[in-house]
């Protein structure tokens, strides 16, 4: 049986982390339906989907690049730009909405000159809105660098993110 030519496509860089992505592709037999799973693998590994990775997926799965781009931009979960060193997810599900979530978002926007879904002017923090993280008993809830806080207040959240702006210049913080 002939080998699928797609399987011989080489990753865009020498980076060893591509092995994780390739393992996901192999597991799903390099079929087009592996596209979303592969994107998850890339985003988990590299933090975002850079243009070169989309081109790689198009070749490796034999899917038009336009479709790859369409899928990547359709789903809110995928991002095409590198993540800021710190993230703050403000939940605006129904319960958080009626319990004060919007005031937390407004406080962050006012204090750090950040637009929704964007980063602060110095790039240290990205602020994202979630439509319910399912932690309604903690409403209003905020997720800062993967840790859920709640019930919280605008002041508490501002206090929590304050260090991100002070230490920023010395060392780029850990997790992405």
């Amino acid at each position, binding site marked *: 049986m002939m080998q699928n030519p797609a399987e011989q496509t080489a990753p865009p860089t020498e980076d060893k982390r591509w092995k994780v992505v390739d393992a996901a592709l192999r597991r799903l037999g390099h079929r087009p339906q592996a596209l979303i799973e592969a994107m998850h693998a890339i985003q988990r590994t590299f933090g975002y989907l850079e243009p070169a990775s989309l081109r790689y997926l198009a070749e490796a799965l034999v899917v038009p690049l336009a479709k790859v781009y369409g899928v990547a931009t359709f789903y809110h979960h995928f991002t095409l730009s590198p993540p800021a060193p710190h993230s703050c997810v403000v939940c605006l599900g129904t319960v958080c909405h009626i319990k004060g979530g919007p005031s937390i978002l407004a406080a962050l926007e006012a204090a750090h000159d950040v637009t929704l879904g964007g980063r602060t002017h110095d790039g240290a923090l990205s602020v994202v809105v*979630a439509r319910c993280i399912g932690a309604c008993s903690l409403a209003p809830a905020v997720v800062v660098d993967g840790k859920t806080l709640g019930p919280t207040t605008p002041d508490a959240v501002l206090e929590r993110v304050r260090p991100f702006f002070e230490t920023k210049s010395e060392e780029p913080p850990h997790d992405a």
Partner: protein
Amino acid sequence: MTPEELRARAEEIREKEAGYAESLRVCSAASCRSLGSDELRKALAGEIARRGLTQRCQVKGVGCLGLCAQGPLVTAELRRGYGVEEREHVLRGVRAEHAAGVVDGLSGSFDPALEVPPGLPFFRRQVRIASEHCGKLDPDEIDDALAAGGYEALVRALYDRTPADVLLEVDRSGLRGRGGAGYPTGLKWRTVAKSAGTPRYVVCNADEGDPGAFMDRSVLESDPHRVLEGMAIAAYAVGASEGYVYVRAEYLLAEQRLRKAIQQAERLGLLGKSVGGTPFEFHVQVRLGAGAYVCGEETALIASIEGNRGQPRPRPPYPAESGLFGRPTLINNVETFANVPPILRRGGAWFASIGTEKSKGTKVFALAGKIANTGVVEVPMGTTLREIVFELGGGIPGGAAFKAVQTGGPSGGCIPAAHLDAPVDYETLASLGSIMGSGGMIVMDEHTCMVDVAKFFMGFCRDESCGKCVPCRVGTVELHRLLDRITSGAATPEDLTLLEELCDLVRHTSLCGLGQSAPNPVLSTLRHFGDEYRAHLEGRCPAGVCAMSGEEAVR
């Protein structure tokens, strides 16, 4: 594993468990975890070890205990010894620093500040079927599930019943889809079983997207084997050998636990090739959503599993005939599958004896909003809203007046105080302009503005519209703009008329359920809270939520 082997193994584990005089079960579901239940579990285990009690007291992490608002929660079970009768104590708000006190309490009396009063309606009024083992077993240990009778219904069905028998039992139970629409489950299974073409697929919709709904997450995090067993039984009944669980990307813990559960079940031959030592095979894979609400719609979900954008397509053909990869596909929600094993174990007639004439069994609800006992409850169909909100839910904290309960998320509606005595079943909720939905129940008090709530949901639908059909793509934007004008005090009476007309149009001409039901929150608030809309036209927000600046907001 044959039925005998399974029974023997379950018996063996139960005996081992019974060897402990006491057990401390610490909730390890997402909400309690955020409140520090992991540290608590370690502290308790440390304290037990320090006192040399590891032989008699067991400490384990379990699934959701339900009363999320008062976490971290611990159940203390005293089986014998100390002259105390077998009893369960539920402890709330337990922190790591309470560990020594909790272990002291094993002698029979716990700090009253920590103990939930016995007979609390929140627990006493529940009838748990789908969530019966949530909070009792360690979701990471298949042995716990087996000891509780997990996979017994599946293996026994494989040996003792034909697929037709299984279909009959599910028919008899009267079970209806718990994802919200309430389609008879037996009928759906039958359609798939009759459809020509193989392979067939079984898909579990775990893309719980309604904001304010977290009951499926609770079940998946607490008892993943239950859902897998339900899927396997369905697969046997409809003749499928492959299955997918489509989980929201946000549910990391649920995803991990599911993957682990699948591995464990495959290792014991309860999933995978030759299930229970029979020729039946069933392979399950997990697929992650990627943050698109519309993927809760079945045709969009299928598109997403196939690696495409999650855009719905017109039905028919229904997935039962042409679904995943164009093959007959059964799609049910998490809770629907979780109800299947008990139906087989105890009989469809038993299940049908619970609930109302047309809505059988129980329903799991996520209670949230302005309510004391935020958490997950399971009650018989037909329980009134008043019982759920005020008895189980404990009413509204701070003495504020009840205004409405919102069911069904962005596809549902708000039900006012006048209908609090309505029984919760599919038909009654629909007649009140809402829907059963997947089970989110959000309580609102006098400080909540209903127009603002309607605007919130419309904003949600606008953001989540997939853009395929015009009525939904454009209609939700325009509806949101109209609502924005109303909440900013810039609207005229004509805007209200236009709002109603546009709702009618979006409802009747959209392609899928998202667009068709997007106007529901507006229509139901117009119907029950028309006064609030009119007050806004006069420049007044009765709840004091809206800015009413007279200018339209930018966003």
